[in-house]
C-alpha cells in the first residue's frame, strides 16, 4: 500500500505527507476547513479570494517542516546551542518533534469559525478560535489519531506549537518549545504568516504579498542575542533569527506584510462586509453566543451561514434581513472616519470618540465601529553577521525601521446618512479630537 502521498498546491508545488498524516487530513475536523473561506468575505472586493483554510493549513505544514530541517541542522548551531537544546542531539527526539510540529502546523486553524476571523466576537466571553483549536486537537475524535502515530504524540505538545505562548497562557514553554511555536506562530518568521501572505497575494491578485520564501527559510537560524542595551550582561535565551545573507528576504516579507494589510486586510469595504455579516449572525442566533461544544461547532461552516443569509436577504420577515440584504445587494455602510496618525497623536482614542459622538447624533443602528490591532509595528529579530557575531535587525537593516506602523480603525455610517454625517463631522471634529475620552467615559 502506498505510504507517501502528495497534494498539488499552487504555492508549494506539492505538499508531501505520509499515511498516518493523511488520516489527520481526512478527519472530519480538518475536512471542515474546506468550507471556511480564508479571507472571510474579501471575495466581495477581490473576486479571486475564494481560497479556504484547508489549503492554507496544508501549506503551513509543508513550510513548518522545511524550517525545522534547516534550523535543527547541527552544522548550523553553535556549541552552546548544541549543548543547551538537547533535542537536536537525539534522532528520536528530532523525529518526534518534527512530527509534532507538522501536526501543529496542519491543525493550527482547526477552531476557525465560519468566515474565519470576522465573527469571533459572537463566541462567549473569553473564547476565541485558538481556544477551539485546542479543544479540537484534544478531542475524542482526534486523540486516537495522535495515539496511532509512532511514537504516539502528546496532544498538549501539539497544542503548544499550534497556538503558541500568547494563547496557551496556562502552559509553560521550554526554550525548545518556544522556538518551535515561533516557527508556526511567530511575528517575524512564523510559517502561518509566510503561507497566508503568499497565498492571499496569489488569490487576491495583489502582487505586493510576494517575497523570496526559499531564501528566507534557507537562512533561518536559532541564535542567542547580543546585549540589547550596551549595559550589563547578556541573556543567552535562544530564538529564531536569520543570517545576514537572508536579511533582504526578511525585509521583503515584512514589506509584503505591510502592503497586504494596507491593501487587503484593512480594506474598508472588506471590513464593513465583516461587520454586516456579524450583525446578520447576531440576529440569526437570536443574540445567543455561537456554540462551543465540538459536535455543534463542527456542524457550522460558511455554507450553512450563506444558505440562510441568502434566504434572509430575499425575505424581509426573516431574522437579519437588513444586514443580509446589505451584503447581497452591496448596499454596505460607508466610511465616515478613518484613523490617521495626525489625529491620533492628539487623541489616541479618536476613532472611538468619533464613533461615540456619531452614535449619539445619528442613532445606534446607523453607525458602526471597527478597530483592528496595530500591524506592521516594531518587529525586531536577531541577525547572524558574517563575522559570526549576532546583531539586531533594527541595527542591520535600514529599511525595517522605515516601515510605518499602521492601524485599521474606521467609523462607518448608513449610506443614506452619509452626507449629513460628513457635514456634522466637519463641524464637530475639532472639539472631538481635542478632548480625548470626553464623549463617553466608558471604556472602549
Amino acid at each position, binding site marked *: 500500500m502506498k505510504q507517501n502521498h502528495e497534494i498539488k498546491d499552487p504555492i508549494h508545488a506539492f505538499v508531501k505527507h505520509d499515511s498516518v498524516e493523511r488520516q489527520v487530513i481526512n478527519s472530519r475536523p480538518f475536512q471542515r476547513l474546506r468550507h471556511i473561506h480564508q479571507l472571510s468575505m474579501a471575495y466581495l472586493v477581490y473576486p479571486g479570494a475564494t481560497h479556504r483554510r484547508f489549503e492554507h493549513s496544508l501549506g503551513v505544514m509543508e513550510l513548518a517542516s522545511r524550517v525545522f530541517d534547516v534550523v535543527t541542522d547541527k552544522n548550523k548551531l553553535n556549541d552552546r546551542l548544541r549543548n543547551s537544546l538537547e533535542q537536536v542531539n537525539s534522532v528520536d527526539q528530532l523525529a518526534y518533534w518534527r512530527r509534532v510540529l507538522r501536526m501543529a502546523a496542519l491543525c493550527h486553524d482547526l477552531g476557525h469559525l465560519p468566515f474565519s476571523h470576522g465573527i469571533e466576537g459572537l463566541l462567549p466571553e473569553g473564547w476565541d478560535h485558538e481556544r477551539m483549536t485546542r479543544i479540537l486537537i484534544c478531542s475524542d475524535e482526534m486523540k486516537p489519531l495522535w495515539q496511532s502515530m509512532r511514537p504516539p504524540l502528546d496532544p498538549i505538545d501539539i497544542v503548544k506549537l499550534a497556538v503558541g505562548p500568547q494563547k496557551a497562557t496556562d502552559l509553560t514553554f521550554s526554550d525548545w518549545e518556544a522556538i518551535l511555536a515561533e516557527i508556526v506562530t511567530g511575528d517575524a518568521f512564523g510559517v502561518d504568516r509566510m503561507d497566508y501572505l503568499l497565498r492571499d497575494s496569489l488569490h487576491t491578485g495583489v502582487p505586493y504579498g510576494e517575497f523570496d520564501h526559499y531564501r528566507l527559510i534557507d537562512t533561518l537560524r536559532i541564535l542567542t542575542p547580543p546585549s540589547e542595551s550596551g549595559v550589563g550582561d547578556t541573556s543567552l*535565551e535562544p530564538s529564531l533569527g536569520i543570517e545576514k545573507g537572508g536579511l533582504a528576504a526578511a525585509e521583503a516579507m515584512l514589506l509584503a506584510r505591510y502592503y497586504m494589510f494596507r491593501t487587503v486586510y484593512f480594506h474598508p469595504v472588506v471590513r464593513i462586509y465583516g461587520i454586516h455579516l456579524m450583525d446578520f449572525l447576531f440576529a440569526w442566533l437570536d443574540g445567543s453566543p455561537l456554540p462551543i461544544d465540538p459536535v455543534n461547532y463542527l456542524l457550522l461552516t460558511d455554507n450553512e451561514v450563506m444558505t440562510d443569509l441568502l434566504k434572509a436577504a430575499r425575505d424581509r420577515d426573516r431574522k437579519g434581513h437588513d444586514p443580509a440584504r446589505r451584503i447581497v445587494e452591496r448596499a454596505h455602510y460607508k466610511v465616515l472616519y478613518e484613523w490617521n496618525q*495626525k489625529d491620533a497623536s492628539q487623541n489616541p482614542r479618536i476613532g472611538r470618540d468619533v464613533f461615540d459622538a456619531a452614535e449619539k447624533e445619528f442613532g445606534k443602528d446607523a453607525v458602526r465601529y471597527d478597530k483592528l490591532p496595530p500591524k506592521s509595528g516594531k518587529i525586531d529579530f536577531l541577525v547572524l553577521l558574517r563575522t559570526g557575531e549576532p546583531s539586531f535587525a533594527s541595527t542591520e537593516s535600514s529599511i525595517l525601521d522605515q516601515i510605518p506602523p499602521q492601524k485599521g480603525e474606521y467609523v462607518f455610517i448608513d449610506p443614506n446618512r452619509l452626507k449629513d454625517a460628513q457635514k456634522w463631522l466637519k463641524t464637530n471634529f475639532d472639539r472631538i479630537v481635542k478632548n480625548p475620552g470626553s464623549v463617553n467615559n466608558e471604556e472602549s
Partner: protein
Amino acid sequence: MRSLERISILLSLINKMREQGSWCGETHIQKAAYILQVLTGVPTEYEFVLYKHGPYSFELHGELGSILADGLVKLEVQPAPYGPSWTLTEAGQTLRARFVSQIQGYAEAVSFLAEELRNKGVAELERLGTAFWVKEHNGRESREDTARAIVSLKPHVDPNDALVAVYGVEELVRNWQEVAPSSQI
C-alpha cells in the same frame, strides 16, 4: 482602568526610565511594566506570560505598537550591535503632561521603579522578572527553591545569578515598602 489612563502610565514610565538613564529597549519596558504591576499594584492589567526574557505581555507589545503608530513614541536606533531605545515624541510629551493629574496616584510607583531599574541590563531584568514570576506563582518557597525554579524555567540562567535575583526581589520589596504610600503596600 480606562485606556487613556493606561496609555498615560505607559508614557510616564518610558519617560521616567529615559530620565533615569535606562536604555529603555522593549525588554526593559516589558520587565518594568510587569514589576510595576506585581510589586506596586498599579492596575495596568496587562496579561503576562513567561516567554521572551521572562514575563512578557503580548498585550503590552501591541500597545507599544499602537502608541508608535499614533506617533506618541519613536524608536532611536543605536550603534551595532545594540537594540533600539524607545522615547517619547513631542506629541507623546504633550499627552503625558495633559494626563498628569489623572494618574497622579501612580506617580510615586513609576518614579520608584524607574530609579531602581535604571542601570539594569536585559539579562539581569530577565532574572529579576522571572524571580518575581516564580514568587507570584509558587508562593512562599525558600530562596534556594525559588532559584531552582528560575533555572528550571530558564535553563540558560546560572544558578548563582538566579539566587542573586531572589535577593534582588526581596530588596525591591523592602525598598518599595519604605517609600510607598500606605494605600499601595
